[in-house]
């Protein structure tokens, strides 16, 4: 890029990126024209406002509201401060909270241990250019196009106790969505069904980018297929692996639509996100209490986000 003659010839109209790179050659940003400065200011300000307005403000407001008992009605001046009471209530006396945490963890574990590896496995298979791989690829990717809410409906046809396909085929009368011991697994199958296709596509894209000479070299050295994958391909795909990991974590934290469609996140399908919605959005309007739940969820998300960012930044420094 930097040796493109156009940029060399006219520094006054060079892009900010090019200028920054030239900074290393001793030219300062004071060479920027007025237009450049306006453009840069806009490019910084607009996203900044968006991020502050749409991300930071709601996040801080949630944390602030979690210390109140606001019921969503009336002016903000009437909000009463209750300190940490919402948090102690959530943990001590709110029965759905513990199942919700367990279900979120179960969700993460199921996606991480079963769905994600299976998706990666399918990607490796499809990468072998087997016959009809395009067809399989499309078939497996199809569920990803559907929203999770829609997937809830699709699977309802399969899981319905009285009219469902599954009970008709098995001759059972299991209440797949209603039985609190069963429904979380039934829902996880539906969620995994979609997740597998997503991971497969991500990983397939990564695999296509692996330099074939690496595999050839491994083959020449006499490595088996499995050894080649685990010792050569997998380490090379580290950036993709991290993305897959992050996607898995995000998917399990934001899991919501599916359980909401099934039974509003009650009776065995409690998830933190569903509890937040029940408390904040419904007729209940326990804004303060719901915000405390949301804050707890934010804290958990922050842990994962921090780990991810730390890894990515270390990667960039190298």
């Amino acid at each position, binding site marked *: 890029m930097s040796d493109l003659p156009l940029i060399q010839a006219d520094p006054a109209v060079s892009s900010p990126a090019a200028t920054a790179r030239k900074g290393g050659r001793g030219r300062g940003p004071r060479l920027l024209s007025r237009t450049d400065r306006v453009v840069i200011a806009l490019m910084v300000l607009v996203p900044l406002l968006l991020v502050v307005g749409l991300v930071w403000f709601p996040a801080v407001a949630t944390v602030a509201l979690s210390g109140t008992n606001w019921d969503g*009605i009336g002016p903000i001046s009437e909000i009463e401060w209750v300190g940490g009471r919402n948090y102690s209530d959530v943990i001590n006396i*709110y029965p759905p909270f513990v199942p919700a945490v367990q279900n979120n963890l179960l969700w993460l574990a199921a996606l991480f241990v079963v769905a994600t590896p299976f998706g990666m496995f399918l990607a490796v298979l499809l990468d072998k250019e087997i016959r009809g791989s395009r067809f399989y690829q499309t078939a497996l990717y199809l569920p990803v196009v559907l929203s999770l809410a829609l997937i809830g409906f699709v699977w309802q046809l399969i899981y319905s106790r009285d009219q469902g396909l599954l009970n008709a085929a098995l001759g059972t009368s299991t209440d797949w969505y*209603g039985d609190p011991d069963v429904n979380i697994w039934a829902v996880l199958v539906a969620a995994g069904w979609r997740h597998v296709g997503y991971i497969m596509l991500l990983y397939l894209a990564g695999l296509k980018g692996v330099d074939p000479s690496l595999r050839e070299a491994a083959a020449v050295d006499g490595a088996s297929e499995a050894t080649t994958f685990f010792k050569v391909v997998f380490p090379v795909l580290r950036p993709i692996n991290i993305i897959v990991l992050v996607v898995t974590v995000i998917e399990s934290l934001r899991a919501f639509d599916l359980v909401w469609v099934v039974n509003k996140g*009650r*009776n065995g399908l409690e998830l933190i996100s569903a509890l937040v919605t029940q408390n904040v*959005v*419904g007729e209940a309007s*326990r804004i303060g209490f719901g915000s405390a739940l949301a804050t707890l969820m934010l804290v958990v998300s922050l842990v994962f986000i921090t780990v991810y960012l730390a890894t990515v930044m270390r990667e960039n420094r190298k």
Partner: protein
Amino acid sequence: MSRPRTQAEYLARLVPPSVAGLRRRSLLAGAAGTGALLGTGLLAGCGSDSESDGAESKTVSLGSNQSDPKPKDVIAKVMAGFQTASGVEVAINTVDHNTFQENINNYLQGKPDDVYTWFAGYRMRFFAAKGLAGDVSDVWGKLSGYSDAFKKASTGDDGKQYFVPASYYPWAMFYRKSVWQQRGYQVPKTLDELNALGAQMKKDGLNPIAFGDKDGWPAMGTFDILNLRINGYQFHVDLMAGKEAWTSDKVKKVFDTWAGLLPLHQADSLGRTWQEAAQSLQQKKSGMYLLGLFVGQQFSNDEQDDLDFFTFPEIDPAIGAKALDAPIDGYMMARKPKSEANAKKLMEYLGSKDAANVTVKNDPSTLVANSGADVSGYTALQKKAAELVGSATEIAQFLDRDTRPDFASTVMIPAIQQFIKDPKDISGLLTSIENQKKSIFTD
């Protein structure tokens, strides 16, 4: 243009544009409102905007939660009656019943329709006290045919009226006469007789009591009636108001009794809606069903005569079996309707005999609140239901209408579902309810 959402809207479109100039614009406003609804997830009011050209507004909007086909049809007919009587058009904005209820806070604080459907009881007084409802005391001055009980049920904490009752329905044990005659079942008068009857039904291959609690609220009816039978009306009201302890022996006895009855209830109830449970009664697979009179909506017209009910039997002779749940449905006015005159006109019409007569003619699953209405069109079932409520000593509204909505939906729904799932740990459950109650009932 969007598809018509209600029959009235569809009918209104048949009017030539030259006649319905204003109407078209309000429809467009409605379409814009729908867009806002999709965009924000709020129940944005999608009725008529006040006309910018200064002409006298001839429209009024109604937010309706009557989303089931039959009641929806009745609303459309009542509104058509109002249109004929007053010349003011009504834009009906129907929202799914449960969704309407769950979004009510946002709905009322946003731009609600001029008039909206709501319930009497704590839930009405709550919004009135929060200033989210319009005072309709002057409309009440023009209404006639309401008993004091109804007026009291329409009055807020400040002594003003905020509600116009339209209909009510008792909760009772429904059954099909043909099934009971065929098997020779007798109406139980006591809890023991109910248990014996249930055992006999089981022997005969029926689910004794149909049951569905997927949506969380139908089982509250069972709790209510047991509490009313075991502890009486006053205790029930105090318990709902947060004044009594849930850990008391009285409440424990309610759950103990319920646990004894649970084996008679249809299994796997947490995955079943009330409609499905009602269909099991309709298909003669269940023997009886504790539900509101609206259970009739799941029966075809020629099956209505086969439907009968009895009030839940006596448990404690000292308490008797005279109290019951009979929730009142009706209408409230927005705090700032776009056209207050039209909104009040509509409220007055909704409380009139004429509106009640239209309802009587078209909906056999409800009872009208106005005693001046011509009830000769009542079915035998309706007459019996009206008698039952008339002879009741006390009338409760329903658990989720008699207490704080946050307590009902975030504490009681999970708690009752937990009880149905695992009826053994009653004292643990009650301790948990009591702890949460203390945290919610703070003011």
